[in-house]
C-alpha cells in the first residue's frame, strides 16, 4: 500500500470529497485497491471479485459522511469489504446462481494422499495447490454464509475472535460458537468423503 507521508492524509482526502471534489476519491481508490482486493479474492472466487471490489468502494463512497476522521480509514474500509463479501454469500446461498462444485474421485485420492506422510512433503512440488483450492471451495460451498465467513476469518486467516467480531459486526460470543461449529462441520464434510472412498475401495 502506498503511504505517501507528504501527501494529504485520509481524513483530509475525505474532507475534500465531502466538500464536493469527487475526483479526490481516486486517491483513496489507488491507495487501498490492493488491500481491498486481497480481502475479496480470499473470500470470493476469482470471477466475482471485480464486481464486489467495485461494490465495496461504492458503499464506502456513499458512507463517507459517517466516517470518523480520528479513526483508521483502512480498518473502516476492511469492515465494509468483509461485510460486502458476507452479503454476497447470503444472496448467493438464497438464489444459488452458481452451480455447486462437486467432489470427484480425483479429489478423494488427493485428500487421502495429502494426509499421508509421504505426500505432505511434496505438496507444492507436485503442483497440487489447485486440487487443494477445489476441495476447500467444495467444503465451503456446503456451509452457510455465516459459518463460511467465520471459518475463513478465524480458522483460515488467523484473525482473533474479537477482530472477526468487529469485522462482521457480531458479538464475540456468537463468533466463538460459530467458529467451533463451522470447524466441526468442515471436518465432518471432509471425513465423510474419506469414508465414502474407503467403502468404495
Amino acid at each position: 500500500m502506498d503511504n505517501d507521508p507528504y501527501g494529504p492524509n485520509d481524513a483530509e482526502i475525505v474532507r475534500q470529497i465531502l466538500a464536493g471534489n469527487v475526483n479526490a476519491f481516486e486517491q483513496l481508490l489507488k491507495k487501498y485497491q490492493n488491500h481491498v482486493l486481497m480481502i475479496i479474492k480470499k473470500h470470493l472466487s476469482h470471477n466475482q471479485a471485480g464486481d464486489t471490489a467495485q461494490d465495496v468502494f461504492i458503499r464506502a463512497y456513499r458512507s463517507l459522511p459517517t466516517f470518523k476522521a480520528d479513526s483508521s480509514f483502512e480498518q473502516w474500509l476492511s469492515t465494509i469489504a468483509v461485510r460486502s463479501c458476507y452479503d454476497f454469500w447470503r444472496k448467493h446461498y438464497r438464489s444459488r446462481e452458481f452451480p455447486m462444485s462437486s467432489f470427484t474421485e480425483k479429489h478423494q485420492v488427493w485428500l487421502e494422499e495429502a494426509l499421508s506422510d509421504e505426500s505432505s512433503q511434496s505438496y507444492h512440488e507436485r503442483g497440487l495447490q489447485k486440487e487443494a483450492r477445489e476441495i476447500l471451495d467444495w467444503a465451503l460451498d456446503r456451509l452457510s454464509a455465516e459459518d463460511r465467513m467465520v471459518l475463513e476469518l478465524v480458522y483460515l486467516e488467523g484473525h482473533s475472535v474479537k477482530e472477526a467480531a468487529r469485522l462482521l459486526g457480531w458479538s464475540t460470543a456468537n463468533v466463538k460458537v460459530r467458529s467451533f461449529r463451522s470447524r466441526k462441520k468442515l471436518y465432518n464434510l471432509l471425513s465423510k468423503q474419506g469414508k465414502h472412498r474407503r467403502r468404495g475401495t
Partner: protein
Amino acid sequence: MSFSKEEHEKLKGILRQAYQEKENLEMGDLWPDALMHRIGGFGAIQSAPRFLTMFEQIVWQLAPVISLLILALTGVLLVLDLAPEYDVFQLLMNGKEEFTLSQMLGV
C-alpha cells in the same frame, strides 16, 4: 473416517495454504477506471445529514430525558391527591344549592 490429531493439523496447514494462495490470483486492472466512471455518475455526496437522519438522531438523544420526564410526571400524579378537586367539581355540577328569594334578599 475420523481424522487423527496429526491429520487435523496437516489438513489445517494445507487448507490455510490453499486459502492464502487465493490472493495471488491475477485480476484485470480495468475495474478501477470503471469504478471511477460510476462514482463520477453519482456526483457529489451530501456531507450534511438529511432531515430524517437528523430527526432520528435527535429523537434517540432525547429518549432518555423523555423517559425520565414521563416517569417523574407519573410519580407526581400518583402522589397528588386529586379527590378534593373532584369533590368540588361534583358539588358544582350536581349539588346545586337553590337559594330562596328570602335568602337572596337576606331577610
